């Protein structure tokens, strides 16, 4: 099976170890990962969408035209990329396609026919690859570890346009995490947004930190997890780095490691943690050591 890996901007720029984790873990599952030659920013909601919707659709269509030409669907981890790519496609195939092709793509010799689609990586892992195949690729297990999941808002809403899970009670990331052997408890603020995307942290940092603290306090007090599992570059960086900031500010006195799902998957498959989970503000070594003690 062949998929086009849509990189976006934040992951290659700031967390290339996460990109590595995605590539190697997919390869271990027998997936051929191809690069989308000439892809650009998705574009994010805070960019063209906020100034000129037609321009946003033109950029979205540009990205799709590349995948379509290569005959692949795109797989993406970043929640924001996933949401905007699905939003573009929705608006294009429901009326704007011809106009955007004529006004923009045709001017540069490109075309999007509405065939190529986007899948979030958790959708792809759960619904296309399947839990059984994931389990059989593992060399180590998260047995004995307690993990809570952060389901990216952008992968469940607006559910009329995108998504692959129950928007009010999403289970896919939980099931995928259980497949690694971890226990996945729920807690009061289980479904709360992390607050990391968009302009919140930039415009009102104090509030954005306090908003995240509500969630962290709730998980710490109720279930005291060994780690948080995310599947979105923004959730990952925000929940990891904001914790460090809050510790320095004296807002919290605990530390909960944050992993992207594919980082844990790659470690459990036996890939080098130094390559697939190298960058973090909140130390993750203890969790990694525990996994490596659990040989299957």
């Amino acid at each position, binding site marked *: 099976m062949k998929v086009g890996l849509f*990189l976006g901007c934040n992951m*290659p*720029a700031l967390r290339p170890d996460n990109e590595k984790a995605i590539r190697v873990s997919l390869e271990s599952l027998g997936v051929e990962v191809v690069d989308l030659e000439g892809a*650009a920013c998705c574009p994010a909601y805070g960019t063209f969408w906020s100034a000129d919707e037609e321009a946003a659709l033109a950029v979205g269509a540009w990205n799709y035209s590349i995948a379509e030409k290569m005959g692949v669907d795109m797989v993406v981890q970043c929640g924001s990329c996933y949401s905007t790519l699905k939003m573009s496609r929705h608006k294009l195939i429901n009326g704007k396609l011809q106009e955007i092709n004529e006004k923009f793509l045709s001017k540069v010799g490109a075309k999007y026919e509405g065939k190529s689609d986007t899948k979030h990586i958790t959708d792809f892992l759960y619904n296309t690859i399947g839990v059984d195949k994931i389990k059989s690729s593992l060399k180590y297990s998260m047995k004995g570890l307690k993990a809570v999941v952060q389901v990216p808002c*952008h992968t469940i809403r607006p559910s009329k346009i995108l998504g692959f899970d129950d928007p009010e009670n999403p289970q896919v990331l939980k099931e995928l995490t259980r497949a690694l052997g971890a226990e996945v408890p729920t807690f009061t603020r289980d479904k709360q947004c992390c607050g*990391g995307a968009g302009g919140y942290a930039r*415009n009102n940092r104090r509030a954005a930190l306090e908003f995240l603290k509500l969630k962290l306090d709730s998980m710490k007090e109720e279930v005291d997890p060994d780690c948080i599992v995310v599947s979105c570059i923004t959730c990952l960086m925000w929940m990891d780095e904001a914790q460090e900031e809050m510790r320095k500010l004296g807002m919290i006195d605990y530390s909960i490691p944050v992993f992207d799902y594919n980082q844990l998957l790659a470690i459990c498959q036996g890939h080098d943690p130094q390559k697939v989970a190298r960058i973090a503000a909140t130390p993750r070594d203890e969790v990694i050591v525990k996994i490596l003690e659990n040989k299957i």
Partner: protein
Amino acid sequence: MPINLKEERDPELVKQIVEVGGEDLLKCYQCGTCIADCPTGIADEPLSVKRLIHIAKLGLAEVLIEDESPWMCVTCTGCEERCPRDARPFEIVLAIRRWQCLEDETYIPQTLTEIYERGHTQNVVNPMREELDLPEIKTVATREDLLEKFRQLLRETRVVKEHGYMFGIMEG
């Protein structure tokens, strides 16, 4: 900030916002569901789509142009999912941002020029790639010919055409 009804009214305001994508604004019946679960609820000045819609309907353009709260949106789309009238409050947030960009170009996000420059919001070629044995990036970041095509496409868009100098494009 309280809404001052003595302020000058612009009867065209709602129409202008509808034109840039807020077409479901008129469905809003001011129930406040969109505020209930908004992450910005604990902000110094929370983002209230309900309030923004009210301001737009009253035609208070002067108030709306000063209001930076739409830019605080986390884009979580909780409001979009739960609005009982399907007024699409998240789309209204984006539409108000667009209207603000049209009225006052200082609202146009700087990242647009970054994307025009290099195809991405930032430099995506991290020097750590080699150490991690990652393949070369193949996006427009490293494909000069494709980046030029991408820029050519962007030069066809309204926002780039109208604000060429922001993107370093000289007239003529």
